[in-house]
C-alpha cells in the first residue's frame, strides 16, 4: 500500500475554509446521516457499529459497538460524554477535528446519544484548548439554532442537551472515571472499576464515554455502512485512523491512514523521515505511554494487534520519533517528570512509584548512580505495572522500563561519562525533591 492510496474520511476537505460552520458542513452533506439515523431503530445502529469493527480511538481500543450495547435500556437518566481531554504527550489529532470540523463530532454525538438513549451530553475538553473550545461552543449554538439539539430534535421526539465543559489542566482527567469525577465537580481521581461507566458513570447514571475521534467516526460509518467500513484496514483493526506524528521527522502533523499501513511508510513516507544524515533510533508508536520500538520495527504494520505483539501498543495513534541524537536517559527523565507530576496520588504504586523513579533517574542523570540502580529502576517499574488503580502508573512504567531495557548500554555509558566529567556532582542537591512543605494554620 502506498501513502497516496490512503482514503480520506475524517480529514476529507478538512482545510476547506469555513468547514467549522454549519452552512459549509451542511453543504458537504453534514447532518444528513443524523437525520436518517433519528428515524432508525436504535438496535439497528448498534448492530451497524458492531459490524464496523471500530475500536476506540482514545487509547484503550475497546470496540465501540460493544460498549454502546452495554448501556442498559430503560427510562433512566443516561449520559453521553466525549473525552476531549487529549493530554497524552504527542497526541494532537482531536484538536484538529474539533477546530476544523466540530460539527462532525456533534453529529456523531447526537447519533450516539440517540442510540443509547442519553438526553444529556458533555464534551470535556482539555483546558488549554481554549480556541477549540470557543469553536465548539459556537458550533453547538449553531446546531441548537438549527434544531439539531434541544427538545424533540427534528420531530423525532428525541431530546438532547449538550454542554462544552473546560477541564482545569490535569492529564488524569483524560482517564474516563477521573474525567467523570471532575465533571461532577470533584477532585479528578479515577474511580474503582467495576462499576464501569456504562452501568454507573456520571451522577451514577449509565454513561457512554468515547474519544473525539471515535465519536466523529460514527457519521462516517453510518454514511457508508458498517460492513463497508469494516473492509477498510485489517483484521481486528478496521477503518482509518488519525496519526499524530511528531519528533525528529521532516513533516510532523496529523495523517489519516488505513490501519495496517507499514510504519515505515508513515514515518518515512508521509512524515518525511528524519533529517538527512540521521537515523531513527527509537519511536513511540502510541503516545508517550507506549513502550518504545526500534529502527528494526519500522517494517511492522501499524495496527492494534501487531503493535501489541511487538510489546508496545497503538494507543492514541501518536507516533513520536527520536533520531540518533537523542539520549534515552533524557527521555526517561522527561517521561518520569511528566508522570510524577500528573499522578493523581490516589493509589500507592503510581503515587510512590513515579516519584521514586524520578528521584532515581535524577541520580542517574547526575551520574550519582551505579548499574545496580538501573536494576532497581527496572524492578520498580515491574512493581508498578499491573498493580495500579488506573493505568497512569503503567503509562510511565512501560516506556521507562523499555528504555532502560533496550538502551542499558547507553545508560551505563552515561554513568561512566558523568563520573569522569569535571562538573560531576556540581549543583546536584541530594536532598532535593524531599521537601514539599505547605503551611497549615496553627490553632492557638
Amino acid at each position: 500500500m502506498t501513502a497516496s492510496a490512503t482514503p480520506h474520511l475524517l480529514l476529507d476537505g478538512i482545510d476547506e475554509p469555513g468547514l467549522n460552520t454549519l452552512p459549509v458542513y451542511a453543504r458537504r452533506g453534514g447532518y444528513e446521516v443524523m437525520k436518517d439515523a433519528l428515524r432508525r431503530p436504535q438496535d439497528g445502529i448498534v448492530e451497524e457499529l458492531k459490524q464496523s469493527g471500530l475500536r476506540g480511538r482514545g487509547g484503550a481500543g475497546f470496540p465501540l459497538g460493544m460498549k454502546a450495547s452495554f448501556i442498559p435500556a430503560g427510562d433512566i437518566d443516561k449520559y453521553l460524554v466525549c473525552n476531549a481531554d487529549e493530554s497524552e504527550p504527542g497526541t494532537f489529532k482531536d484538536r484538529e477535528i474539533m477546530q476544523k470540523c466540530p460539527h462532525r463530532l456533534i453529529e456523531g454525538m447526537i447519533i450516539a446519544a440517540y442510540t443509547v438513549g442519553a438526553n444529556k451530553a458533555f464534551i470535556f475538553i482539555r483546558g488549554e484548548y481554549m480556541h477549540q473550545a470557543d469553536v465548539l461552543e459556537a458550533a453547538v449554538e449553531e446546531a441548537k439554532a438549527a434544531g439539531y439539539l434541544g427538545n424533540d430534535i427534528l420531530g423525532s421526539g428525541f431530546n438532547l442537551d449538550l454542554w462544552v465543559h473546560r477541564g482545569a489542566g490535569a492529564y488524569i482527567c483524560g482517564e474516563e472515571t477521573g474525567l467523570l469525577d471532575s465533571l461532577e465537580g470533584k477532585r479528578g481521581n479515577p474511580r474503582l472499576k467495576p462499576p464501569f461507566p456504562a452501568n454507573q458513570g456520571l451522577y451514577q447514571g449509565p454513561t457512554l464515554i468515547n474519544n473525539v475521534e471515535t465519536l466523529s467516526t460514527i457519521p462516517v460509518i453510518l454514511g457508508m455502512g458498517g460492513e463497508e467500513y469494516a473492509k477498510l484496514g485489517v483484521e481486528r483493526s478496521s477503518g482509518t485512523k488519525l496519526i499524530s506524528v511528531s519528533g525528529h521527522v521532516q513533516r510532523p502533523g496529523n495523517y489519516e491512514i488505513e490501519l495496517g499501513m507499514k510504519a515505515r511508510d508513515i514515518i518515512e513516507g508521509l512524515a518525511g523521515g528524519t533529517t538527512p544524515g540521521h537515523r531513527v533510533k527509537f519511536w513511540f508508536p502510541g503516545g508517550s505511554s507506549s513502550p518504545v520500538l526500534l529502527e528494526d520495527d519500522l517494517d511492522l504494520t501499524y495496527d492494534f494487534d501487531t503493535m501489541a505483539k511487538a510489546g508496545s501498543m497503538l494507543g492514541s495513534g501518536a507516533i513520536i520519533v527520536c533520531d540518533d541524537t537523542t539520549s534515552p536517559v533524557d527521555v526517561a527523565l522527561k517521561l518520569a517528570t511528566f508522570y510524577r507530576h500528573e499522578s493523581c496520588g490516589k493509589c500507592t504504586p503510581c503515587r510512590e512509584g513515579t516519584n521514586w523513579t524520578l528521584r532515581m533517574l535524577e541520580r542517574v542523570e547526575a551520574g550519582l548512580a551505579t548499574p545496580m540502580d538501573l536494576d532497581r529502576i527496572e524492578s520498580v517499574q515491574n512493581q508498578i505495572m499491573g498493580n495500579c488503580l488506573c493505568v497512569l502508573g503503567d503509562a510511565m512504567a512501560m516506556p521507562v522500563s523499555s528504555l532502560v531495557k533496550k538502551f542499558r548500554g547507553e545508560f551505563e555509558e552515561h554513568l561512566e561519562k558523568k563520573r569522569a566529567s569535571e562538573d560531576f556532582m556540581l549543583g546536584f542537591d541530594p536532598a532535593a525533591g524531599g521537601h514539599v512543605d505547605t503551611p497549615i494554620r496553627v490553632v492557638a
Partner: protein
Amino acid sequence: MPRPQRSPITFTIDGRDVVAPEGTMLADAAKVGDVEIPVFCYEPKLGAPVGACRMCLVEVEGIPKLQTACSTPVKDGMVVNTTAPKVKAAQESVLEFLLVNHPLDCPVCDKGGECPLQDISYGWGRGLSRVAEPKRHFTKPLELSPLIAIDRERCILCYRCVRFSQEVAEDHQLVFLERGADTYVGTFDSHPYVAPFSGNIIELCPVGALTSRPYRFRARPWDIEGGGTVCTLCPGQCNVTHTVRDERVLRTLSRENDAVDDGWLCDKGRFSYQAATAPERLQQPLVRDADGNLQPASWDDALDRAASILRASGERTAAIAGGRTLNEEGYLLQRLLRDQLSSPHLESRIAPGPSRELLAALHAPALQATVPDLEFAHHVLLLDIEPQEAAPILELRLRKGARRLGTKLSVAGPRPSALDPRAQHVLRYAPGGNEGFLKALAAALEGGDVSGPAAAAGIDAAAVSGLADTLKAAGEDRVILYSDALLSGPGADESARALLRIAAALSLSGEDGAGSGGAGLLGIPATTNGRGLREAGVLPDAGPGLRAVAHPGRDLPGIAEGLAGSELDALIALGVDPIADLQGRAAWRQALGASHLIAVSSFLTEGVAGYAAVVFPQEAPAEQEGTLTHPDGRVQRARPAVRRPDGIRSGWWVLAQLAARLGDRTTLHTAGMAFAELTAEVPFLAGLTLDEIGGKGVRWPTLAEAATWPKGTTDLEPQTDATVVPPANGALRLARQSSPWRIPEVAASKALRFLVPSADARLAPADAERLGITEGSPVALSVDGTEISATARLDSRIPAGTVVAQAGVPGGGADELGGAAAGGIGLVEVRSA
C-alpha cells in the same frame, strides 16, 4: 426496607473450602477461612471500597490481573490464591512503596505497637528497604484541630479520614490538597477541623498520622489495658473501651456495637474522660456548716447529716434523678422515697411529660423502633428533635441510611436541624406549637380537619397535608424519632395522644401485623438513662415497671412550688442540678433557697454550690457500675474501667446507706444485688441476668417477659382544642437550643473546653432588621422582668417570629427565662443591647 439477606456460598481460598455469605467482599470472607488479607484503605463502615492502597491484591482464578480483595465480592466456586508468588510480589511492592516516604519514626510514634502499617510490614513486607532517596518532609506535628494532631509525613494517603468527613459525618471539611506524591490531608483554607464527630478519624487512621492531642505521648500500647463499658453522657449510650494506665483513663475508643453506635463516637464521648481527673471534680463529701460554707466531711458525718434532714422532712421530701443515674440508683431512690419516707414526689424528666397510661402506650414493645430501624426505614420522621443535641450518634445512623440506602427523612420542629439538607420535607412550626402540629398531622392522616390545629401551631395546613401524603405513600417501614421536648409541658398528654393517633394511622405497631417489624416510635429522653429511670419507677405517677401508684406525686413545677412554700422541705437531686439542668431557674432558686438540698454530683454546679446542705461526690462515667436502658429498650451494662478514687462511693451505696439509716432492714452489698432487686420488681425484666446482658446488651422488648408491659391508654380522642401559639406581636417566640456540649464534663475536660457553648440568640434576618440587630451584636432577651444577654446570630433558616436561644450556657442562657417561657410557649422581648 428489607435487610439484605445473603445466602451462603462456597469458595476456595488457599486450597481451603470456605462457606461465606454471597457478595461479601473477599477481604472479609477470607477471614471466615482464617486467611488474613492485609488492607489499609478498606473499611466497610466508610461505604463502598475505593481501591486506593492496593494492599489487598490477590489472584482470582480465571482473571489475568490481580484483583483487589476489598472490592471483589465472593461468588460460588471462586478460587482465590493469596500466597502465589505474583501476589507475594505485589504485597511486597505496595509495602515498599508505602515506606518510600514514610519516616519510620516508630520509636517516637504514638501508634507504634498498635499500628496496622507496622503489623502489615512485619507480616507481608520484604524486610529490607531499597530506598536511597530523600523522603518528603513537612512541619510536624500540626494541630489539625485542638483535639487532633497531624503528622503529614506519616500519612499513607489511605483516604479513610477524608472519606469519614465527606461520606459519614458529611461535614465536608477534610480534603486532600495538592496531587500525586505531594498530596496531603488538610482543610480548605487551613481552618481547624472542628466537627461533632471529628475524633473518629484518629481511630480510623492506620498509621500515626492522626493522633489525639490529649493522648499524645501519654502511654505505649504495652502500658495500657482496655476497659469496656458504655458512655453515660447522653441517651445514645455508645459502647466504649477506655484505655487505662495506672488506674487512670487516658483515652476512649469505640467498642463497636452495630445495634447502638455502628462503631463511631462523638467527640464528647471520646474526650470528656479528662473530666474525671480535673481538679474541679469533687473527691469527698461536703456538708454546709453553720456559716453557710460547704466543708469537707467524712462519709459517716455526711450520711448522718443527710439522714437527719430526711428524717425530719419525711413525706415532705421530693427527689429528682437525672444525668448519668443508673437503673439501680433510680430504683433505690424511689424505694427510699416511697418506702422509707412515704413520699410520692419523684421525677426523672427535665420537664413534665405524659402520664403513665400514655407512656405505657408510647413505649409498648410492639411500637418500639430500634436504632438500626433508623437506617433501614423507608421514611424517618424527626419530630422536634435535633439528633446532634439529643443523641449525637444517631445523626450518623440517619445520614448512613439516607446516603447508602436512600432512606427518606422529613424534619418537623420549631428549629432548624443539621439534617434539613437531607430531608424531603422540612416543616417549621412555631415554638410551643407541638400539640397543634401533632393534632394537625394526625388529622391529615385520618382525614380530619387540618387547618384548625395547624393554625394553632402557626404552620401552613398544606405543608402538613403534604407531609401526611408522603408518609402514607412511603413504604411500610416508617419510624418516628422524637425528643422528650415534643411531649412536654402543659399539653403533654394531648400531644402524646395525637402522636399515638399518628402511629396508629401509619400502622407503626408490629402488633397489627402491618409492618415488617422495622416501623415504630423511638423517643429520645433528655437525659442519658431517661428511659431506664422511668421504668425503674422514678416518676410521680408510676412505680417500678411503670405500675400504677395509689397516690401520684407532684410534677416538677409542683415540686418547685412545694419547696418554695411550706409543703415540701427537702429535695434529693441525684446526678442533676435543678438550676443548671432544669427550666425555670428563677423558680428553682426560690425553691432551693427555702428548703434542704441533698445532692449527688461530680461538680460544684450552680445549684449544688449555692444551696446543697450535703453533697455526695459522684462516680465518673468510667467508674460507674450497673445497668442503664437505651431509648430503644436495650438494657446495657456500665462496667468500671478504673477504680473509684478513695473518697468516692457508688450512688447505689449512698442510697442504701441512707435507707439503712432511715430504718431499712434489707442489706445491699453489691451493685449486682441492687440489679437483682430491680429485676424482681420489674416484671418485664424478670429473670434477666448481668451475664445475659453481657457486652452488647439485651433489648427487653424482644424478651418473652415483654408481654407483662402494662397496657396503655386506648382512648386517644383529643380532649381539648390545640393550645394556640400566641401571635408574636412584635415580640419573638422563644425556642431553646440545648448544645450537646453543655454538660459539666465538657467544661471540666481541658481538651473539650473550647466547645462550651456561648450564649447565642439566632433569629431571622427579617426580624433582626426590624429590631435593628446586626450579626454578632449584643442583644438582650427579656420575659416578665428577667433578662439575659446574648450574641445575635442571623440565620435565614429560622422562621420570622422565632428566636432560638442557647440553653445551658454559663449564666443560664435560655433557661434563665422563667415564667411561661419555661414550658416552651412564651414570648420574649428582644432588643439590641
